[in-house]
């Protein structure tokens, strides 16, 4: 006999289902008058936010290339100096004018999502090396049984991407571009492929 380890198990995930928007973005789904606005729905940027303004746009595609029109996408990112606006950020204080978290539904007609935000700074990896600027993504939808985690890096950060501790250890180099948002001026395009030849790299975080 040994002493029992008294840990609980994490609650099992279940799909967000087709009506996730009722709960998470009710105004978007047409149910107004309960919440003044959908949480995380506005721009992440105000006049005082530090950093370079960007818009992240993209689609989430299924295994036959059809864009999902019922996905919900959340992002979480550091501020322009690489600090997260979170109590667990102990290296310094995040920009008080940058919340760092947002969520958007894909457009009901086209499936496209868009986030108005800033380009994040570099955040250190566990060993102190700097990770290249990246935005953390979480994707849920009908048919997705457990939320999917990925990251978007930036195409204009070739040098930092090459030194990134996570990107550089990915064995199948041909898949690395699935994590790179393509920058064109202030717009960064990041398409997510759930399945197929270009399947996006998803992380077990």
């Amino acid at each position, binding site marked *: 006999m040994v002493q029992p380890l*008294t*840990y*609980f*198990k*994490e*609650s*099992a*995930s*279940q*799909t*967000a*289902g*087709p*009506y*996730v928007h*009722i*709960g*998470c973005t*009710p105004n978007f789904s047409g*149910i107004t008058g*309960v*919440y003044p606005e959908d*949480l995380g729905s506005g721009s992440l940027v105000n006049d005082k936010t530090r950093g370079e303004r960007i818009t992240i746009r993209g689609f989430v595609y*299924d295994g*036959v290339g059809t864009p999902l029109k019922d996905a919900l996408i959340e992002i*979480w990112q550091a501020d322009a100096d690489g600090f*997260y*606006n979170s109590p*667990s*950020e*102990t*290296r310094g204080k995040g920009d008080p004018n940058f*919340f760092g*978290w947002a969520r958007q539904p894909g457009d009901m007609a086209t499936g496209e999502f868009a986030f108005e935000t800033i380009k994040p700074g570099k955040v*250190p*990896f*566990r*060993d*102190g090396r700097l*990770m290249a600027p990246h935005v*953390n993504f*979480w994707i849920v939808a*009908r*048919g*997705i*049984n*457990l*939320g*999917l*985690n990925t990251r978007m890096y930036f195409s204009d950060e070739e040098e930092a991407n090459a030194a990134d501790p*996570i990107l550089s250890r990915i064995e199948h180099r041909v898949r690395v571009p699935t994590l790179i948002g393509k920058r064109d001026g202030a717009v960064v395009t990041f398409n997510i492929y*759930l*399945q197929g030849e270009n*399947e*996006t*790299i*998803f*992380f*077990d*975080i």
Partner: protein
Amino acid sequence: MKNMPPETTPFFARDRAWHPPAFTPGYKTSVLRSPQRALISLEGTKSEITGPVFGHNILGEFDNDLIVNYAKPGEMAIGERILVHGRVLDERGVGIPGALVEFWQANAGGRYRHKKETYLAPLDPNFGGFGRAITDENGGYFFKTIKPGPYPWPNGVNDWRPAHIHFSVFGHGFAQRLITQMYFEGDPMVWICPIVKTIPDENAIKGLIAALDMQNTIPHDMRAYKFDIILRGRRSTFFENRKEGN
């Protein structure tokens, strides 16, 4: 919890044999929406162990009362009145204060208030079907609602969802983010549902079934169901003198 410093350690690894796998052909929509390649493992960095904090200022007075939050003045939603309460804990059994919990559900007839919903059961003009709460210092939350009805859905020709309430939960780190569903004690529909059956472990399913809680029932008003939600635990801080950078 107020006097505790913020935790900065990575989370316990997620037990992916406990959660439903991505590809579950009994739930047809998962077939084309399931990644087929191995996930790349990533031990928690700052990007995963941090997360947003939501203040009570986002909450409206009736956000946790679905019986009235969409109803016309003086009216109420129709259905079996219930109180749903419980705690948000982590795998260590530690209550998680300040966690945002969002919930949504069908009405008493099994109908959602949604443009794409086509079930013939009627809408309840006084029921929106969603709400939210932020956990107290012990991780506790509660809301009032009506018991949702079961409903048919297009999967197999005769598939039905058991009565359920959807939950979206934020912990303290983005890696704790979780969406799940709550089922009701004693409902035979739970065990024949293709979405429930995506979960491979029977005990994991039982962990999503709320118990009828007569101790917290409000006499002459509403019955209570207790539903605890467990989020990933955090590793202990054994080495506080570790060099900064993690």
